[in-house]
């Protein structure tokens, strides 16, 4: 199997030189190429702006999720004070689930931040290449025979096409990633929208099953015990928890 690096560049080259082979008038091709490059640069800019917008929306969702965490914590406290340990447990279970998702989304958000900077750099490079192409095309028009011009245009346009495809793919990947994070955050929104205590009594749906699994992790028991101690509600932490802490 030929190396991946070489194979990839062959795929890229095949893609971007094909169209140029058919060109009859190098001067027209040059101007058309340049126009097309400018148009593509606008697309790239729009793509990056979309990613930025999506990221801002996500940041707002983090804040909402953080508020939900606080709210559920408050609800658990209230439930416990009122002597409803089962409800307190449900609230804490949901809190744990939201918190876990929140942390995962934050980590991905940081990765996205780094990628975003690369996108902006890639766009700058693209603009510089297009500008270089613009000045080169005038030189080519003035100094080269049609056959030579063809070769030079082919090279330059392939080089730009390669970079454009690279940035385009990076934009697409960043978009996909924000979409995934968005979907995840929205699922949590739905989960917490039903975050009133009464809703905890309904059971049997997917989310409830997931929550039940999480609550088996012991974290909820720990939190519940801690909360009881803080509130001084008298109830002794269960033996199980004492055992874990010892």
């Amino acid at each position, binding site marked *: 199997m030929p190396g991946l690096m070489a194979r990839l560049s062959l795929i*890229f080259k095949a893609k971007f030189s094909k169209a140029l082979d058919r060109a009859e008038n190098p001067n027209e091709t040059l101007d058309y190429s340049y126009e097309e490059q400018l148009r593509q640069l606008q697309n790239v800019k729009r793509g990056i702006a979309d990613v930025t917008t999506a990221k801002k929306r996500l940041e707002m969702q983090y804040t909402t999720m953080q508020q939900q965490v606080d709210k559920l914590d408050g609800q658990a406290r209230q439930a416990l004070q009122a002597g409803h340990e089962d409800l307190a447990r449900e609230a804490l279970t949901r809190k744990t689930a939201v918190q876990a998702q929140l942390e995962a989304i934050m980590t991905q958000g940081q990765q996205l931040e780094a990628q975003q900077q690369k996108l902006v750099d890639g766009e700058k490079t693209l603009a510089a*290449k297009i500008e270089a192409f613009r000045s080169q095309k005038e030189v080519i028009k003035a100094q080269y025979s049609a056959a030579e011009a063809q070769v030079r245009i082919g090279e330059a346009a392939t080089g730009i096409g390669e970079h454009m495809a690279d940035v385009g793919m990076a934009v697409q990947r960043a978009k996909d990633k924000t979409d995934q994070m968005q979907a995840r955050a929205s699922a949590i929104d739905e989960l917490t929208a039903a975050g009133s205590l009464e809703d905890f009594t309904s059971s049997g749906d997917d989310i409830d099953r997931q929550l039940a699994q999480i609550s088996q992790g012991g974290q909820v028991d720990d939190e519940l015990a801690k909360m009881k101690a803080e509130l001084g509600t008298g109830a002794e932490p269960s033996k199980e928890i004492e055992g874990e802490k010892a």
Partner: protein
Amino acid sequence: MIVRLMGEGQFRVDDALLTRLNELDAEVSRAVEQGDERALWTSLQALADAVREGGEKLADADLRPSDAIIPPEDLSLEEARELLADEGFIPDVPVAS
């Protein structure tokens, strides 16, 4: 030789480094064949690091196409397969018609 690190830019690497890059490249290919995503990431990372450390970054205005292209370090197996299927995954960029 000119090498592109996707999402990052182009580098000039000399022949001395090429042997090492080819070895790492073989590891990447093997990881894709064996469907081992973790090995894919490790080898892509090593490949990219070798280029960054041993290569010289090309000027932005340089219009040369690359002789070799290295995909992003966090490429998934699915993306790798798509990338290697003819023209798949590479955005359609008409340069001229």
